[in-house]
């Protein structure tokens, strides 16, 4: 059976190395997805590598179908593609959900830089729509001083009506490698010894640094 151009480009010459690279990026996708859902905060936007791969796979699939290759092989590639797309879609959906919930908070902090361009556009429109809606339905009818979407009243010094993600919560996490003795609170009374492959329920605030540093996985 002839392998299509696209397949060659994907699998091609490099062989083993190419395979490994793809494998890694798919794993990253799963990880991002899992962690993304478990993480109360918003994570950085991953590389666009996944999207390119899906495009290549779609091309391969088209070629296979055109060449009337073995039905079995076509259906297997189709399944692989469907799985990847499903994962990607649900990942994007989770991100949109977080953006919808905390749009104002995100737009005002450096979390904004973690959004992709499209997401930033989405968040902006979201805020506009929400502002308009609140303005028309409630705020315009309130007495002077209480008409801000962001402040309880004019006397508030900061924006105190902005929903923020609840970071003071507990998460399930798995250690990748030995971290060693780790301090859980500010006073240093609570210390755990994190050994590789341990599963813990810990406070997100205390392990946030480890999560960002990739030393611990959320499950």
């Amino acid at each position, binding site marked *: *059976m002839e*392998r299509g151009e696209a*397949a060659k480009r*994907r*699998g091609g010459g490099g062989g083993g190395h190419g*395979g*490994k690279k*793809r*494998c890694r990026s*798919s*794993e990253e996708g*799963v990880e991002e*997805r*899992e962690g993304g*859902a*478990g993480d109360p905060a918003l994570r950085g936007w991953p590389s666009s590598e996944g999207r390119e*791969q*899906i495009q290549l*796979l779609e091309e*391969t699939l088209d070629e296979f179908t055109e060449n009337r290759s*073995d039905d*079995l*092989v076509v*259906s*297997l*590639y189709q*399944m*692989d*593609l469907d*799985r*990847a797309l*499903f*994962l990607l*879609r*649900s990942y994007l*959906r*989770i991100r*949109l*959900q977080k953006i919808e919930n905390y749009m104002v908070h995100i737009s005002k902090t450096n979390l904004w830089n973690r959004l992709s361009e499209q997401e930033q556009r989405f968040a902006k429109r979201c805020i506009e729509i929400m502002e308009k809606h609140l303005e028309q339905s409630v705020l315009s009818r309130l007495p002077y001083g209480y008409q801000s979407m962001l402040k309880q009243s004019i006397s508030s010094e900061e924006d105190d009506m902005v929903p923020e993600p609840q970071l*003071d*919560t*507990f*998460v*399930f996490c798995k250690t990748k490698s030995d971290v060693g003795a780790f301090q*859980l*609170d500010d006073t240093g009374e*609570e210390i*755990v010894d994190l050994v590789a*492959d*341990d*599963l*813990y*329920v*810990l*406070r997100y605030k*205390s392990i946030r640094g480890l999560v960002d540093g990739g030393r611990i996985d959320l*499950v």
Partner: protein
Amino acid sequence: MAGQSNPHLSIFSAPEVEFLAEDEVVEIVPNIKMDAVNMICGDFGPFFPQIATKVPLWLAVALKKRGKCSIRPPEWMFVERLTHVLEAERESPREFQPLPFHYVEMSKLLLDNAHEDIPDIYMVRSLIEDIRDVRFHKVETGLETISGRTHAVKLKNLSAMEVNIVRPFMVRALQAFYKHDSPEMIQQPESTVNRRAQVVDRGPRNIFVTVTGLNMILSVVAKSRDAFVVNNASFGAAAAAVSTTVMNCSL
């Protein structure tokens, strides 16, 4: 995936956890000749009849459904191993035995799709069910022992499905304990009358919120997870601890 289910109850639904488990690698013995496939998740094959090779579970199940291969059950899915694990689970009430992170989902998929490839299938099925029950019982008794501000709960070897089932209840319970058992909630002797009144005022409201909160979680857990029914004892313990905290405040 997770966007479709209610994010406040559980991060993943059971089929979503199963989806994640389908990337685990299993060994198959194909009965056809086929070139290697270059998937997004890696390269697999080439496939030759009667020569074992490793593929992700979803690929194995897909080939199996089309009658193109037989699946070799993983070594932990044999009767001797499982019997041993079950015994060990029963003997150590505070520890979980090491099993694959996705053992619940993998065994379900294999038992459903590859029944003729698994020796002593009825025995294997009932052993896995027993192991699950024993482990869930341990999680429940573990929950009962949480009785104050807790910074860390160690659950080594707990599997993906088990984590997903206990997550909503456990996180809310720990949050409640963390909040109500904080040192700031306990009355300082030198504080003013004014502050005392405030604290007393705050007490009953908190207990009300917490108990209804717990109640809600309990009914949700009981409704949606028949495999994991939180018994009244743990609820009682939680409620009792909350009221103790509140009493501390008003004294």
